[in-house]
Every structure is written in C-alpha cells, then in structure tokens.
C-alpha cells in the first residue's frame, strides 16, 4: 500500500557523471593517502569512502527516488552500526 508506481528514470548521461565523480574521488583518496596526517588520513579516507557510498546509494541504487521509509532505514542501519562500534570502543579505548 505504500508504493506509488511512478517510475523515475536516471538518464544515461547523469549516470556517467556520477561515475566520473566516483573516479575523481578515488584519485583524491589515493593522492591524499600519500601524505601522512596520522589518524587524520584514515578519517579523510573514510569520509571520502562515505561520500562515494552516498553517490552510489542515491543515484545508482535509486534511493533518491524511493519512499521516506526506505531512506530512513538505510540511514538508520548505518547509524546503528556506528553506534555499536562506538559502544564497543568504550572497552578498547579505555583498556
């Protein structure tokens, strides 16, 4: 009962643009990894990876055109995982 059957088509060209962005991001990560910012490097790498995931999710996986509920649970699962990791690290961080 939730679905609306309108189809949203992501155009060929737009898909290719997303792909080019993804390649650029990949290059940036590799470049940045050459500098040693210590812990920051990992953070930057992960942030870029997350941006890439955002692109793949929103456009390739069509999340942008899905209903609210689906968008929420996808983000929710991501946050849940991060929360679990944070709670876990209360052990290792202070050990």
């Amino acid at each position, binding site marked *: 009962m939730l*679905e609306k059957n309108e189809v949203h088509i992501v155009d060929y060209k737009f*898909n290719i643009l997303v792909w080019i962005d993804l390649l650029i991001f990949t290059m940036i990560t590799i470049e940045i990894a050459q500098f040693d910012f210590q812990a920051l490097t990992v953070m930057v790498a992960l942030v870029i990876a997350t941006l890439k995931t955002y692109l*793949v999710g929103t456009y390739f996986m069509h999340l942008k055109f899905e209903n609210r509920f689906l968008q929420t649970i996808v983000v929710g*699962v991501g946050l849940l995982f991060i929360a679990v990791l944070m709670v876990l690290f209360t052990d290792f961080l202070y050990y």
Partner: protein
Amino acid sequence: MSSESVSQNHTAHFDAYGIKLGMWLFLFTEVLLFGGLFIVYATYRFLNPEAFHEGSSQLNLVVGAINTVFLLTSSLTVALSITALQKGDSKKAIDLIMITIVFAVAFMFNKYYEWTIKFEHGMFPGMDHYKELPPGEAQFFNLYFLMTGLHAVHVIVGAILLLIVAWFIKKGSVNQQRIVYLENAGLYWHLVDVIWIYLFPLFYLII
C-alpha cells in the same frame, strides 16, 4: 531473492515494492555480515597500528586501484542497464549486463593474480612464511584474506545473479513493467561495490 509476492500466485497483483523492500532487508544483513569483520578490523588496527601500516605497504596499490576502477565502472554499467530497461530497450540492457560481467571477470582475474603472488611468497594462511609473521601483521593478513576473500565470493554470486536476470530479460519475463528483478540484482551488485569502496582504503592505503 527471486521469490515473488504471494498475491501473484492467485491474482494478477505483483508487489514490486515488497520485493524491493525484501532485497533491501537482505542487503542489511550483508552489511552487518561484513560489519562484524569491520569491527574486528577496527579493533586490531587500533591495537596494532604500526603492524597494520607495515602489512599494508606489502600490498600492491596499483592492483587495488585498478580493481576499484573495474568495480566502479561495472556499477555504472549496471545502473545504465537499468535505465535501458526502464526505457524498454532490453537488448541494450542485456549488453550492458554482459559488459558488467566482463568487468567482474577482470576483477576476479586481478584478484587471482594478486593472490598467486602472495602464494608464491609463501604468504597464504597455513604456509610457512605466513606463520612467521610478527603478531599484529599476522592479524592484518588474516583480515585481508578473510575480507577480500568473502568479498570475492560476493562478486561471484553477484555476477551469477546478473547472468540469471539477463537470461530472464532475454526470455521476456523481466521487462519494462517487471523490472524489479533487474533492480534487485543491481542493488546487490552496487552493495558489492560499496563494500569494496571501504575495503580499498582500509587495506591498500594505510599510512
């Protein structure tokens, strides 16, 4: 996930959204399956930072980067294939799936090459050189083989799913109106891509 909604058994109704929702739920389980390994990774990396750096420098960045490009591109072709089928061009859709498969094979080939080299150096679980690795580094390679290995299994499964869907498109049972199976196989493929997006920097790029 090729099960159909029940109602289809005895009425004309076909619940595309339900099937897609099912696929997403399945993807969550995949995310958390890898999530368990990411947790182990995060912990051991935290406990042995230098060793992980040391281990990472022994991996071949070029091979990793090429594989990243392969997977990103294959994701693109899957996305394009969905666009094609949405527009009703099933021939183009099949062609694009086939290109995806080619990239998948290329990825696996690269992986094979990478692992063979490790193998020749005795750097494979159970082999002599492997057993002599210093503590943290052993964990790095344990995780490397386990995570990229599990990922490779997913690449194979994803490729098979796509092939099956291509066959159905050819037969006509997956078409512009009933595109959800292609979308689902695509979702799976993109997930495989997303996991690699994280694996790549975490294994090949640690400073």
